[in-house]
C-alpha cells in the first residue's frame, strides 16, 4: 500500500513502525476524596524521577529541556494549585491536573510574548505525561527502541523527542505538523527522513519512507524493498566516494576559486551547515523565524539567532536575506492578506518598506549580530533602484542610531541584492554600481522570466532554468558583475544542479549556495572543470541559444569537454539528447 504525505526531511528510511501510543485518559470531573492529592503528588514525584534518569543519559542541550520540566513538576505554586483544587472541589486528580495545566498553557499562549507562548506546548506535554503516570501507563522510552524503528505518532512531544537514541531510529512519520513542526526540525538535525500528514499506520508495519517525495510504502513487496535498498546503498556509496573532497579547496583544474555556501532557514540548520564543509552561508532565509507564531520575533530574539550563525561561521560570510514574504503565506499578525497575484504583489522589500518598524527591527538585529562575525545583508525582490537606495539609507540611519546608543555593530556591512526580477537582471550594470554583491535567485528569476507558476501543473512544463532566456540573463548578470568588480553568486535550486555547475563556473560566478548536503558533490564537479575551456565554450555559444535543446547541448558539451559544432548549434547532439519537457 502506498500513502502520500509531505516530505519535511530528506532521505530514505526503511524500518518498522513504532507507534507512540497516546492514551485517552478521562479528565471529566468526578467526586473524589483527599487521597487524590496524594495520588497526584506521588505521580509528580515519579515523573520527575523518570525524567531525571533520562536527563542523565542525554547531551546537555536535551537534558536542559527535561530539567525545565522537572522544575515545573516540583514547582510549589503549580503543585499547590492542583492540590487546592482537589481539596476545594473534592474532585479527581485528572480533572484538577487538566484544568490547572490547561489554564497556564492558555495564559502563556495568549500572553503576546513569543517565547512564553511556546511554553504552552511544554505545559501540555507535562500534563499528558502526568496523566499517563497517574493512570499507570509507562512513558514511551525512546532510548530503548528496537533497532530500525520508524517513529510514528500523532505529533512528537518535546519530552519524548529529547530522549531519542538516533542509532535506533531510521525515520519519522507524524499525522500532524509541517516543515517547521518540532518533529521536522528534530529529524533534520539528526539527518533522518521525515514525512508528515499521514495517519493510520499500525505498530510493527514494515515501512519505506521517502522524506524527499513524501511517499510511504506500507508493507512493501520484496521487489520494492530490494529497489529501495539498492537506492539507499547507491546513495551511501556516492556519499562515501564524495567524502574524499571534504576539506579540499573548491577550485577548477586551472586554479579558479569558487566559494560553496550553504542555504539555511532554521536555527537547527546552522550546526549542520557549519559541519558540511561549506565556505559560509549564501542564503539565510529569515522568513521561518516569522512563521507559525502569533507575533513578530523581537529584535532581541532575531539578534540571538543571527549572532549564533555569525559565531558558528566566524570569518566565513553569512549572507542574511531580509524578510521575503507575501500573500502566498497566511501570517495574520503581519497583516498579509490573500492577493490575486501574490508573487506580483505586496511582498519582500515592497512589504518591508511599508512596514518600516518591522524592517528596522530586523536590520538592527542583523547589524548588531554583524559585530560577531562576517555578516552581509541581502535584499530580496529588488526591481527598482529606488528600493536599493531606500534600504541603504535606512541601514545607514540605523548604524548611526546604534553608534549613538553605544551598541556594537559591524562596520561597513556589505549590502547586496537578490537578482530575481527580470528588471534587476536587465539593469544589472546599473545595480552593480550601487550594490556590494549580487546573488541570482534562480527559482524566482525563472518564474518571472517565463511567466510561469510552477505550482500550476497545467503550465509547469514551461518552467525550466535551462531555458535559454534564463541562461542568457544569468550570463548577462554575471558579466556585468565582473565588469563592475562585485561578487556574483547563485542561490536557488539551480545552485546545486550538477548539470549547471560548469555553466555557472564558466560564466565567472564566484559563489554557489545550496543545501549543505550537496556541497561535496558540487565541489567534485568544480575540481574536474577547466574554467578557461568552459568560459570559451559559453562565450562562443550563449548568444545563439534558441531553445531548451540548444541549452542541453551546451550543458552536455561542457560536461563532456567536447567543443560544440558551431551554428546551427549542436545539430548532431540534438539527436542524442532527450528533451526535458514533453513537447512531442
Amino acid at each position, binding site marked *: 500500500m502506498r500513502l502520500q504525505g509531505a516530505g519535511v526531511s530528506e532521505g530514505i528510511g526503511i524500518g518498522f513502525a513504532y507507534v507512540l501510543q497516546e492514551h485517552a485518559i478521562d479528565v471529566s470531573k468526578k467526586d473524589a476524596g483527599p487521597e487524590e492529592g496524594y495520588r497526584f503528588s506521588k505521580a509528580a514525584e515519579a515523573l520527575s524521577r523518570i525524567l531525571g534518569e533520562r536527563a542523565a543519559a542525554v547531551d546537555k542541550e536535551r537534558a*536542559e529541556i527535561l*530539567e*525545565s520540566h522537572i*522544575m*515545573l513538576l516540583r*514547582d*510549589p*505554586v*503549580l503543585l499547590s494549585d492542583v492540590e487546592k483544587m482537589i481539596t476545594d472541589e473534592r474532585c479527581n486528580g485528572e480533572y484538577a491536573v487538566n484544568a490547572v495545566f490547561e489554564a*497556564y498553557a492558555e*495564559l*502563556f499562549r495568549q*500572553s503576546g*510574548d513569543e*517565547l*512564553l507562548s511556546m*511554553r504552552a506546548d*511544554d505545559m501540555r506535554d507535562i500534563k499528558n505525561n502526568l496523566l499517563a503516570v497517574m493512570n499507570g501507563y509507562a512513558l514511551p522510552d525512546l532510548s530503548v527502541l528496537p533497532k530500525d524503528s520508524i517513529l510514528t505518532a500523532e505529533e512528537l512531544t518535546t519530552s519524548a523527542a529529547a530522549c531519542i537514541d538516533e542509532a535506533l531510529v531510521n525515520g519519522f512519520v507524524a499525522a500532524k505538523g509541517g516543515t517547521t513542526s518540532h518533529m521536522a526540525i528534530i529529524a533534520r538535525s539528526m539527518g533522518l527522513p521525515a514525512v508528515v500528514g499521514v495517519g493510520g499506520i499500525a505498530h510493527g508495519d514494515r515501512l519505506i519512507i521517502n522524506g524527499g517525495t513524501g511517499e510511504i510504502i506500507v508493507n512493501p513487496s520484496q521487489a520494492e524493498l530490494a529497489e529501495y535498498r539498492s537506492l539507499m546503498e547507491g546513495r551511501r556509496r556516492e556519499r562515501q566516494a564524495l567524502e574524499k573532497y571534504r576539506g579540499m579547496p573548491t577550485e577548477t583544474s586551472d586554479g579558479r576559486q569558487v566559494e560553496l555556501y550553504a542555504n539555511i532557514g532554521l536555527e537547527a540548520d546552522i550546526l549542520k551547515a557549519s559541519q558540511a564543509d561549506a565556505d559560509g552561508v549564501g542564503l539565510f532565509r529569515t522568513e521561518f523565524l516569522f512563521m507559525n507564531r502569533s507575533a513578530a520575533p*523581537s529584535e*532581541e*530574539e532575531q*539578534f*540571538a539567532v543571527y549572532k549564533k550563525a555569525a559565531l558558528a561561521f566566524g570569518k566565513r560570510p553569512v549572507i542574511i536575506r531580509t524578510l521575503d514574504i507575501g500573500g502566498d503565506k497566511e501570517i495574520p499578525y503581519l497583516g498579509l492578506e490573500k492577493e490575486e497575484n501574490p508573487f506580483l504583489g505586496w511582498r519582500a522589500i515592497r512589504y518591508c518598506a511599508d512596514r518600516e518598524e518591522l524592517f528596522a527591527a530586523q536590520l538592527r538585529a542583523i547589524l548588531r549580530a554583524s559585530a560577531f562575525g562576517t555578516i552581509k545583508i541581502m535584499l530580496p525582490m529588488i526591481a527598482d533602484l529606488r528600493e536599493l537606495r531606500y534600504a541603504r539609507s535606512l541601514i545607514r540611519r540605523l548604524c548611526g542610531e546604534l553608534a549613538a546608543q553605544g551598541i556594537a555593530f559591524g562596520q561597513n556591512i556589505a549590502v547586496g541584492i537578490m537578482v530575481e526580477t527580470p528588471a534587476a537582471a536587465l539593469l544589472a550594470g546599473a545595480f552593480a554600481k550601487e550594490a556590494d554583491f549580487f546573488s541570482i535567485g534562480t527559482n524566482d528569476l525563472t518564474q518571472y522570466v517565463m511567466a510561469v507558476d510552477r505550482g500550476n501543473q497545467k503550465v509547469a512544463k514551461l518552467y525550466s532554468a535551462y531555458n535559454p532566456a534564463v541562461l542568457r540573463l544569468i550570463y548577462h548578470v554575471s558579466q556585468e558583475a565582473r565588469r563592475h568588480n562585485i561578487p556574483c553568486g547563485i542561490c536557488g535550486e539551480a545552485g546545486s544542479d550538477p548539470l549547471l555547475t560548469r555553466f555557472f563556473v564558466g560564466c565567472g560566478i564566484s559563489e554557489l549556495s545550496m543545501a549543505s548536503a550537496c556541497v561535496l558533490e558540487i565541489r567534485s564537479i568544480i575540481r574536474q572543470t577547466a574554467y578557461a575551456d568552459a568560459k570559451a565554450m559559453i562565450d562562443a555559444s550563449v548568444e545563439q541559444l534558441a531553445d531548451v535543446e540548444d541549452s542541453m547541448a551546451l550543458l552536455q558539451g561542457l560536461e563532456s569537454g567536447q567543443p560544440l559544432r558551431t551554428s546551427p548549434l549542436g545539430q548532431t547532439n540534438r539527436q542524442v539528447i532527450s528533451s526535458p519537457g514533453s513537447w512531442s
Partner: protein
Amino acid sequence: MLRRQITINNPSGLHMRPAGVFVKAATPFQSAVSFDIRGHTYNAKSMINVLSAAVKRGDEIELRIEGEDEQACMDAVVSAIESGLGE
C-alpha cells in the same frame, strides 16, 4: 524584610533557562522570596510564577526577601542576576 530594585538584562528576559537559574538561586534559602513587577507580586521560588511574570530585557523588578537568612539570600539572588543567569 529586605527590598532591592534590580534590572534584568538577559536578552530575552526571564524565559525558560534564565528563569530556571533564578529560581534555583532563590530556592535553597529559608526566607520567603518574591518580586514585584507591573503591580503584581510573584513567588521567586516558583518557575511557573516567574515565567508568568513575562519579565523582559530592561525590566526593573523589586526583590523582597524576608526570613532569617534574608541577607545571604539577597546576596545570592543579586549575584545570580548580575552574572547573567547562566547566559
